[in-house]
């Protein structure tokens, strides 16, 4: 057997069939072709608008290069995050359809391999998407608008965020019922992904500007260090995402109830990440700098995603609650059950929201922006934000425990939930002390919406970022909640029907 034949055989044996199928389907998808064209066309059109505005007599091409970079990066990230999240979600919805799901469920395909294959296919396509973006990046580099090192860093950061949004898309499709609610979720997810991409492009643009002007840390060596640290942070996030996906089996449980979940690994991963997050918070509190802030923030995102996974998926999956409760519990308990599931979801999403906002703040600081965060007392602000986490975490834990009582068949991870609860209570207590002593200007209503924090601590630009960031993430659970109400009514009607005396029962004899 020749080397090529051996290689071919080796690849053939290791190729994930789902990834291969998804790849074929994606390559034929017209939507994807449209997204690809948009990624190339939008920055091209925008650049053509800028060109006449540039001074032809000026030989410095740096501003134009920077503008091209910002436009192309923004377009690429917005389309990438939004498109990949919705495509990932859609691909799972197709498999959840009984007609296709049954065929896979009675095959030897490991559901984890299915999810992993979908993730791989999306990431593979993201790599293709770079082809549309790279010409603009190259143009920017040639004009001196961007450094090669930072281009590579941006691509890595983009892959990291794409991976995260693909994961969120896959998760969103796995929970709850299919149908209209699922479609609404998909559009909200797309919007959320788009805004997230926009936010990331702001962040990267600011960081790149600071990097190119040497103001990130004040020196060129400092710049290099900062970027290396950022790459390390990004790699860590990517690694966590990959590890979590390969070991996590909640998806597997949904796809195939008979499959035994790898509970110990999952719990261990979750506790480790939580520990890392707490350490990060401590480091930030002691030595608050743009670099540490930006490096450690991804950990928060991962922790929030995991929390979302653990609570919302295990404890508050609406389909599970409705199925187990509708027939075993009184209908009066249904509404609180749905509210609980909604709250658990909100809680999880709130973390992502807050983490994104923190990223924005860190970016603002890194670029020496007008945020008053640097002028105020950073530790106090941090504690405010941490306490805000805590408030919702506490709420999340409470509803999780209520949900568990109401639907005993669900098995959320108890240990991490109680760990979070203990930390939350302490942080909330600390907030009260802070409010009393040193920070009278902050009061409870402000803690409801992160936009308000930025109003007090940031510039109008940051407020806009905060608003854009939080809008889809609040809209998502709101839409979810409305559908839960609708679902509740439907189930109440069904329960009422079942209770009717003339309802046919199964006691008929042949």
């Amino acid at each position, binding site marked *: 057997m020749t080397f090529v034949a051996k290689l071919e055989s080796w690849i053939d044996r290791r190729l994930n069939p789902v990834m291969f199928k998804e790849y074929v389907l994606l390559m034929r*998808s017209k939507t994807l072709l449209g997204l690809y064209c948009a990624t190339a066309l939008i920055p091209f059109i925008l650049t053509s608008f800028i060109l006449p505005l540039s001074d032809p007599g000026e030989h410095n091409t740096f501003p134009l290069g920077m503008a091209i970079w910002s436009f192309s990066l923004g377009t690429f990230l917005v389309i990438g995050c939004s498109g990949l999240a919705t495509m990932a979600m859609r691909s799972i919805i*197709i498999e959840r359809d009984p*007609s*296709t799901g049954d065929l896979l469920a*009675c*095959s030897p395909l490991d559901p984890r391999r299915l999810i992993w294959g979908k993730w791989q296919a999306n990431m593979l396509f993201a790599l293709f998407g770079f082809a549309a973006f790279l010409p603009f990046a190259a143009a920017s580099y040639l004009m001196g608008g961007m450094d090669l090192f930072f281009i590579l860093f941006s691509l890595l950061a983009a892959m990291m965020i794409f991976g995260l949004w693909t994961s969120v898309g896959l998760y969103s499709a796995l929970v709850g019922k299919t149908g209209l609610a699922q479609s609404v979720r998909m559009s909200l997810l797309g919007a959320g992904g788009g805004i997230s991409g926009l936010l990331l492009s702001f962040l990267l643009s600011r960081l790149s500007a600071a990097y190119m002007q040497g103001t990130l840390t004040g020196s060129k060596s400092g710049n290099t260090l900062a970027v290396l640290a950022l790459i390390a942070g990004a790699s860590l996030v990517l690694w966590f995402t990959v590890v979590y996906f390969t070991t996590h089996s909640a998806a597997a449980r949904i796809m195939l109830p008979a499959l035994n979940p790898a509970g110990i690994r999952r719990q261990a991963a979750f506790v480790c990440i939580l520990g890392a997050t707490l350490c990060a918070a401590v480091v930030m509190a002691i030595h608050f700098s743009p670099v540490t802030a930006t490096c450690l923030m991804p950990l928060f995102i991962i922790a929030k995603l995991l929390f979302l996974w653990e609570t919302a998926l295990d404890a508050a999956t609406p389909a599970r609650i409705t199925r187990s409760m509708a027939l075993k519990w009184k209908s009066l308990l249904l509404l609180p059950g749905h509210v609980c599931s909604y709250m658990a979801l909100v809680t999880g999403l709130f973390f992502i929201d807050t983490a994104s906002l923190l990223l924005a703040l860190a970016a603002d600081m890194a670029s020496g922006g007008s945020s008053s965060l640097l002028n105020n007392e950073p530790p106090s602000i941090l504690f405010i934000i941490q306490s805000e986490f805590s408030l919702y975490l506490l709420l999340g834990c409470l509803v999780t425990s209520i949900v568990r009582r109401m639907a005993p068949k669900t098995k959320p991870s108890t240990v991490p939930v109680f760990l979070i609860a203990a930390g939350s209570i302490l942080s909330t207590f600390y907030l009260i002390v802070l409010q009393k002593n040193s920070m009278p200007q902050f009061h409870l209503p402000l803690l409801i919406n992160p936009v308000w924090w930025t109003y007090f601590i940031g510039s109008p630009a940051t407020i806009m970022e905060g608003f854009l960031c939080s809008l889809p993430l609040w809209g998502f659970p709101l839409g979810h909640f409305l559908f839960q109400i609708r679902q509740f009514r439907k189930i109440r009607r069904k329960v009422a029907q*079942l209770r009717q005396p003339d309802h046919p029962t*199964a006691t008929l004899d042949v």
Partner: protein
Amino acid sequence: MIKVESLHRSFGKVQALQGISFKAAAGRIIGLIGPNGAGKTTAMRILATLETPDNGQAWIDGHPVSEEPDQIVLKVGFMPDCFGNYPGLRVHEYLEFFARIYGLHGATRRKILDEVINFTELTKLLDRPMEGLSKGMRQRLGLAKTLLHDPKVLILDEPAAGLDPRARIEFRELCVALAGRGKTLLISSHILSELGEFCDSIVILEQGRVVAAGSMAEVQQQSRPHMEIAARFLMEKPGIQTLLAESPFVRNVHLDGRLTRFAFTGNEEQLGELAAQLIESGHRFSTFHCVEERLEDVFMKLTRGDVQ
């Protein structure tokens, strides 16, 4: 090959299966029939590891279904009543996808794919997109997918539904050929005439219970404890009715010109004696045979059409 014992499954208050039991030997075709909501699909889904029984057990090739699902999925090929397609995927890509899932690689995969494609006569359709296939073509594709891992047992849920007569006959021939290869087929269908023609055994379900089970003759015996005899005499002669009435095994004699029908409760030897008596008494006939009962008639007699 298939053994089902006291299988129970309920969905909320609805008891889909209430202790069904039946057996099937290797290389046999078993028809699972019953009105809508009788529990046919639930039983099939349990055998295909897609549902777990509340009580009871099923075995395939000696492996308990609910305890060893990983073994069962390799021994069973399940074809649901409507299997979804992946718009954009072509026929050969669809088959390759499932072949990869079943762990077939390289030359082995190509060889098996060729065999299955030839057997199901899909050669001309390989480059067609799945969404452009007719119902009959899709059923053949479904069967091809089901055969990829060479399962010992094939579970086909309503495979002939929506097929035109030609496609139905072709599909039936495929099923018979598969049974000839030693595979056990469990088929559910509403087209009873067809099942009656090629099934070795029948299991009739109603309201989650087995109403009748066994070979066609056994099921007919259960629905009708006597033989229905039809005789065509060469000429109308008086005294036939009296002669028949004298036999202790003859009931319900109907005369319609030269055609006579009656119920016979005796065995085949006693029937032979009766025929000899008729000839001796000068009543010559051109035909004298036991009327076969159609599966539709058996089904209508045994089931009441009740739905849970």
